[in-house]
């Protein structure tokens, strides 16, 4: 029977269908990307049977585990122990370093990949690579290159390494990726070792105790380059945000469409009750209908999303959201899960409406369906007020929360308040409608009369507008306010000078490039506290620590450097910002460290990978890279939330107008010209849009202020609030246009304008 209803009244299910189709497609696409974005075993370790990872440190706040390097003694004892284990064919430390080929004096290749593209020849076997041509490198200055480089054996290969430009001789060509040098050179160029690749027979039992973790199979992906992990994390953030906002908007739209459908089907539901359907049966009928629609929409939606996801792989890599080599396949579980999510979303959306439908009294079969008795039900009041309290309560949590959680809390609180505004909207309809001048014509009177009777209808049209305006103002406002704030923060630190910065082709400046310049720079590195906790440090003058580490001047700390060597250092002063270490010590223990920028005190001297620019231009460039990402996030989230709700606006107005056809016929017969009828409907829809804009702003603007307060606290300077007026106008205007157009549409189709009142009645 449900099927008969769905088939017959497809028009009233169209909105739910479209909302679910889109929602499920977004979720399925996101999940497919997510599935593909799982860490991969690096190619260079693809042939290993086991990977031993160094001890990992996991911070209490979450984040990625960080592997501290083994000290040379730990490493040699571990290697000795592993080699002695029965079944182990070889155990090879993984040493990687920065190397980038210079083509015509210019660094080439992906700068991010270059950071770990150099390796020791002994580890070539871990990737299953063999020499195709020539010989392995045997001494310093020799290199084996991938055949894809197209360099013949015996040729000279100019490269850039952390120390500076140098020229190597190609002694061989492999089928792998990366540049392989002899082991001695590799260990002098690489920092520490954090992974050992093992080739072993099945069943070999490896024991490493406290000194690391034994990884096999897919778990070996844990040692993928940190850079890739970070990139994936960014991608994951976008995916999570998409699923989160997309899921919320889907539930929101589906539930308001369902609620509306119940209102406009009162007479039919009353008839069912009159001929003997129990409240439970009516409830189940609505649930089944919606679930049917959920399946009908969910299955194609899920495939649509899963098939579209592979097309997004390249844009994701280009945007720096996934590492190079990211590909997306058809993921069955993503399809399956998103169909299920669609069903759950639909059930959640229809649940309250179904309960309300069950309570429709049988006598409603005899009443005019368009007239609702009360704008608000008790459930609506209670839920609405609970949402106000929950949203307000969330906002109260803000002052005590960490800077990381703040944006999430602001967004959640705003979402809950959007729901509250939607639930309580009918209350505001009557006072709003009073503002319409009655005038001399019929339009004013009709709109005032209809709107106060059908507050619910106006509120239903307003609901998606509330969400669209709320999301647009909040998202754009927060992002823009934040990016202005970040600019302030960076600008405060920019001295008015010129700098030698890394060119965008390289990950950082080599030692040679730095030394060529006169000026000041700091060399970033990471050192590890005895707990294994990594802390960023810069090579500068003496050992200075910021106050939050809780160390006194004169106390001694054993610090583990990038090469794993532990050095005990006495604190010589308390610094204001980061941990500072003697520069030479950093260089000694972190041969791979690269300098981001040199503040020049003399004219710039050209060097591979270095460019001259003003300090301001440098800051702007760094910020732009981030801003591009921020813009992308914004575009995706806005696209989903606003695009989706716009669809809902059109749909609700269409449904509302369609459901009132009987009323229009009456109007027509009492002598209203088609123009008058259309005017009444359009004015009413516009009123609903005004209501929605007002309520959306009522939620978004305070949330924007909260977001700004959080930012101010974070950077400790006043931040100007950016109110996204153009966006507000665009979204509000767009909703108004859509609403007006959708009010008009059913008249065009039914031919009411040409006097075909009968078709409309039928």
């Amino acid at each position, binding site marked *: 029977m449900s099927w008969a209803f769905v088939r017959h009244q497809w028009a009233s299910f169209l909105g739910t269908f479209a909302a679910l189709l889109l929602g499920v497609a977004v979720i399925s696409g996101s999940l497919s990307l997510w599935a593909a974005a799982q860490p991969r075993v690096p190619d260079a370790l693809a042939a290993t049977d086991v990977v031993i990872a160094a001890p990992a440190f996991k911070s209490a706040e979450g984040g990625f585990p960080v592997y501290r390097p083994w000290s040379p003694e730990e490493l040699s004892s571990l290697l000795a122990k592993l080699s002695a284990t029965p079944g182990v064919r070889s155990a090879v430390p993984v040493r990687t370093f920065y190397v980038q080929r210079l083509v015509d004096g210019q660094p080439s290749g992906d700068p991010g990949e270059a950071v770990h593209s150099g390796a020791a020849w002994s580890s070539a076997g871990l990737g299953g690579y063999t020499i195709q041509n020539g010989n392995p490198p045997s001494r310093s200055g020799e290199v084996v290159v991938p055949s894809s480089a197209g360099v013949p054996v015996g040729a000279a290969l100019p490269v850039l390494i952390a120390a500076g430009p140098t020229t190597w001789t190609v002694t061989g060509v492999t089928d792998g990726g990366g540049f392989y040098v002899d082991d001695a050179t590799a260990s002098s160029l690489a920092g520490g070792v954090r992974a050992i690749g093992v080739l072993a027979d099945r069943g070999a039992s490896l024991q490493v105790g406290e000194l690391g973790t034994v990884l096999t199979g897919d778990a070996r992906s844990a040692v993928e380059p940190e850079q890739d992990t970070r990139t994936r994390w960014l991608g994951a953030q976008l995916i999570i945000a998409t699923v989160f906002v997309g899921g919320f908007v889907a539930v929101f739209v589906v539930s308001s469409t369902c609620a509306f459908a119940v209102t406009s089907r009162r007479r*039919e539901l009353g008839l069912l009750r009159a001929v003997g*359907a129990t409240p439970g049966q009516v409830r189940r009928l609505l649930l089944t209908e919606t679930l049917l629609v959920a399946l009908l929409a969910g299955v194609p939606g899920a495939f649509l999303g899963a098939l579209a996801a592979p097309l997004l792989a390249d844009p994701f890599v280009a945007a720096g959201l996934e590492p190079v080599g990211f590909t997306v396949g058809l993921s069955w579980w993503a399809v399956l899960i998103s169909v299920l999510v669609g069903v759950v979303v639909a059930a959640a959306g229809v649940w309250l409406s179904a309960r309300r439908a069950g309570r429709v009294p049988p006598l409603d079969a005899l009443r005019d369906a368009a007239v609702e008795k009360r704008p608000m039900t008790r459930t609506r009041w209670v839920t609405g007020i609970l949402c106000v309290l929950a949203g307000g309560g969330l906002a109260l949590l803000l002052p005590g929360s960490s800077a990381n959680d703040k944006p999430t809390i602001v967004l959640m609180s705003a979402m809950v308040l959007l729901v509250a505004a939607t639930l309580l909207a009918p209350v505001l309809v009557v006072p709003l409608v009073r503002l319409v001048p009655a005038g001399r014509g019929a339009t004013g009177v009709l709109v005032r009369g209809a709107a106060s009777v059908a507050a619910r209808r106006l509120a239903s049209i307003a609901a998606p507008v509330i969400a669209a305006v709320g999301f647009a103002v909040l998202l754009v406002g927060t992002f823009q306010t934040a990016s202005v704030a970040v600019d302030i923060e960076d600008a405060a630190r920019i001295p008015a000078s010129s700098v030698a910065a890394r060119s965008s082709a390289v990950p950082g400046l080599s030692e040679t490039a730095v030394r060529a310049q006169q000026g000041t720079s700091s060399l970033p590195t990471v050192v590890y506290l005895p707990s294994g906790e990594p802390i960023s440090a810069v090579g500068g003058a003496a050992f200075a620590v910021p106050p939050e580490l809780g160390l006194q001047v004169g106390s001694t700390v054993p610090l583990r450097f990038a090469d794993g060597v532990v050095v005990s250092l006495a604190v010589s002063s308390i610094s204001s910002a980061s941990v500072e270490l003697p520069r030479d010590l950093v260089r000694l223990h972190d041969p791979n460290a690269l300098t981001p920028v040199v503040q020049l005190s003399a004219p710039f001297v050209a060097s591979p990978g270095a460019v001259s620019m003003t300090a301001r231009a440098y800051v702007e460039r760094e910020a732009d890279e981030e801003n591009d990402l921020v813009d992308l996030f914004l575009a995706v989230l806005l696209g989903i939330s606003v695009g989706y709700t716009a669809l809902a606006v059109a749909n609700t107005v269409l449904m509302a107008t369609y459901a009132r056809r009987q009323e229009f016929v009456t109007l027509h017969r009492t002598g209203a010209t088609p123009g008058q009828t259309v005017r009444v409907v359009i004015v009413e829809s516009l009123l609903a849009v005004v209501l929605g804009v007002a309520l959306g702003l009522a939620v978004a603007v305070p949330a924007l202020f909260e977001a700004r307060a959080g930012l101010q606290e974070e950077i400790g300077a006043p931040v100007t609030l950016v109110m996204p007026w153009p966006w507000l106008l665009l979204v509000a205007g767009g909703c108004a246009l859509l609403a007006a157009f959708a009010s008009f549409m059913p008249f065009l189709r039914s031919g009411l304008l040409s006097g075909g009142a009968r078709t409309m009645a039928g």
Partner: protein
Amino acid sequence: MLALPPTLVVVRLCRSPPRGWLKSVTTTLQTRQAVELHGVTRRYGTGEQTVTALDRVSVGFAPASFTAVMGPSGSGKSTLLHCAAGLDRVSEGRVLIDGVELGPLREKARTRLRRDRIGFVFQAFNLVGALTAAQNVELPLRLAGRRAAVGQVDAMLAEVGLADRAGHRPSELSGGQQQRVAIARALATRPVVVFADEPTGALDASASREVLRLLRVAVDRHAQTVVMVTHDPLAAAYADRVLFLADGAIVEDLHGPHGAEQIATRMAALS
């Protein structure tokens, strides 16, 4: 075998007697009415605006009888029907259907009772637009979790002369045909009583005659009880009994078939 006194037989048959069973059993035995109203009052609104739509109405409808309810507009005819059918709750008084008192029943039990023992024909909007004529007829059975026996629905439709329209949707049927489908549906469960509120109100003379003939046949051939509200003396002439309502009270109770003219005269005298 031990012979039991009749009351005890009833007791043994009622495995879980409902509250007040004795009273209902006795009233049923005494009067054998299909529907009974005892002192039924229905008020709408509160305070100043209270409207008393029914004022202490007591009436019974005998099985296999055809009763017409007449009266001026606003006299409480529809209210009487709704209260008798359990569509509306009464402010005071008791309603019994097939001996079961409606008052104490919760919504679900009330709905079941309506589904199984009452049939409805309204003036318009009787049918679910999404369902075909046959599905509409079968609806109460379906809602009861039953399936119509093979051919039963077709037989019902044939009885109202619409055998060839089983697969049509309401939008494809004329007003008179829609009313006939509604009658078939009302009769489908073999209810204790069929209530009809101006079933011919929106029909022309010949379609009205057909609908009234069908109701009459249901009473004569299937011993169906029918209570019908109407404005039309011609329609009322099909009934065995005509009740006249004015201001929420029964002012006249005509038994036996009467001619339309006679009824019209009565009505004119009352209003």
